[in-house]
């Protein structure tokens, strides 16, 4: 099996940490992974993207032209990548910030998750990336939910380990909301 996702937002939303966390979880499951951060003249407030490919066999290309799954955390990323999602693919949007009404894609599944609102309700807007990755894993089963929580000790520096319970909660809430939106 091979799963691929492009996660995109603006610098500071924790896009790269989300990709790292997902990768660590896949590594722990014994899978092959490539994590490729967009690398350029990026800065805080500018765009931040990363590509994660998880495979049982060879990963192949770490670069995607038309991702099967796109997670967008801000409007600019939707405008940049929305048209590139593979037909039949999945788009998960942070509906707190992203408006998809002008996106003309009846050929893909769009799941809106109010990621900013969920993170704020849980006590810290900075957990928006955890909500996003929770939603992604719930909808795709790219890795097991337990692997994701288990990988937090590796993805976070030790000084932030005290925040792990809160992050687990954010991952779980993101997952729950995404599942309920899918069923709706």
């Amino acid at each position, binding site marked *: 099996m091979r799963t691929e996702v492009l996660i995109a937002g603006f610098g500071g939303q924790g896009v790269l940490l989300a990709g*790292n966390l997902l*990768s*660590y979880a896949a*590594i722990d499951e*014994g899978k*092959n*992974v*490539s*994590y*490729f*951060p967009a*690398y*350029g*003249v990026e800065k805080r407030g500018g765009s931040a993207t990363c590509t994660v490919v998880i495979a049982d066999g*060879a*990963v*192949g*290309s*770490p*670069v*995607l*032209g*038309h991702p099967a799954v796109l997670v967008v955390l801000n409007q600019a990323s939707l405008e940049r990548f929305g048209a590139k999602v593979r037909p039949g693919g999945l788009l998960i949007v942070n509906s707190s910030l992203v408006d998809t009404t002008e996106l003309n894609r009846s050929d893909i599944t769009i799941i809106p998750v109010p990621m900013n609102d969920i993170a704020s309700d849980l006590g810290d807007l900075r957990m928006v990336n955890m909500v996003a990755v929770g939603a992604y894993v719930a909808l795709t089963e790219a890795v097991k939910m337990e692997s994701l929580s288990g990988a937090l000790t*590796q993805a976070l520096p030790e000084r932030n380990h005290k925040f792990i319970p809160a992050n687990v909660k954010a991952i779980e809430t993101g997952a729950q909301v995404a599942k309920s939106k899918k069923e709706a």
Partner: protein
Amino acid sequence: MSKRLFVKGNEAAAMGAVEAGCRYYFGYPITPQSDIPEYLSRELPKLNGEFIQAESEIGAINMLLGASACGVRAMTSSSSPGISLKQEGISYMAGAELPGVIINISRSGPGLGGIDASQSDYFQSVKGGGHGGYHIPVLAPNSVQEMYDLTMHAFDLADLYRTPVMLLGDSVIGQMKEALIPNARPARELPGKEWAVRGKSGAEQRVVKSLFLGDGELEAHNWRLHAKYQVMKEKECISEEYETADARLIVTGFGSVARIAHTAVTMAREEGMKVSLFRPVTLFPFPEKAIAEAAGRAGKVLVVELNTGQMVEDVRLSVGAAAQVSFYGRPPGAGSLPSPEELLEVIRKHYDDTAR
């Protein structure tokens, strides 16, 4: 099996250097390779090694020359314009037959260029980037694991042939993270360093130099170097083939673009096209025989590079009249990495031509 780590390509190269016994690093920071000095500046002091941030790239390469002359394993790394500055020193090392490892996580040029993934330094790397008509082995990793494994291999080749060795990558290979199994390789049997200058203390004088003024001395030296390159061509070619047995079109590329091509070839196979991938791992010596053989069977070769056409020249020289060689290039620039789908489109076009 060792634990699988999750690390950046650049870190993997630095870890491979440490595993290979390199305890001396000299460099000057430049994106996108600065993770290498960052890692070594932290780790080498713990191992009683030396990390020196030199005053310039020229300083760093000459420190490498000096350390190597003393018989220790040492390394430097940089990116394209920095590697250009090092070329004089590399030529001196090739002339004095000094081992050493140089990593180029290249930028996109010419001039100041940009920091995007690029393969524009192929010619500079494999054709003797400095003066005087020498070659150095050039290794092109395409994964984080290979950044580790080939860095260790580079140190062995350097000692075995008394030559500088270059590892050539780009920001895709340097900046991406993948699983790494830090396996200890079985050490190759290597010659002693009886030439190294370690202090005379009553022993016979040893001289390390690249100046040969005696009658016929320099000519003999050049022929000896030439003979060494012929041995490398015989013994040190590495390449990887994917699905080449029944292929009617062979796609070839090195490093990062070979990863993208791998997925494109898999997609083409799913559509029923008999397409394969041939990946040179050593760029010098170029795997001439292996590619000529694969190309001869298929009849057609498509070379893909992140430049306007460099390795394609070596492919044409190797293949000769045995196959038709065509080229698809994507010179460097932001957003100009080809996607697997784009390469698939190129493959389709060339494959259709074959069918006619």
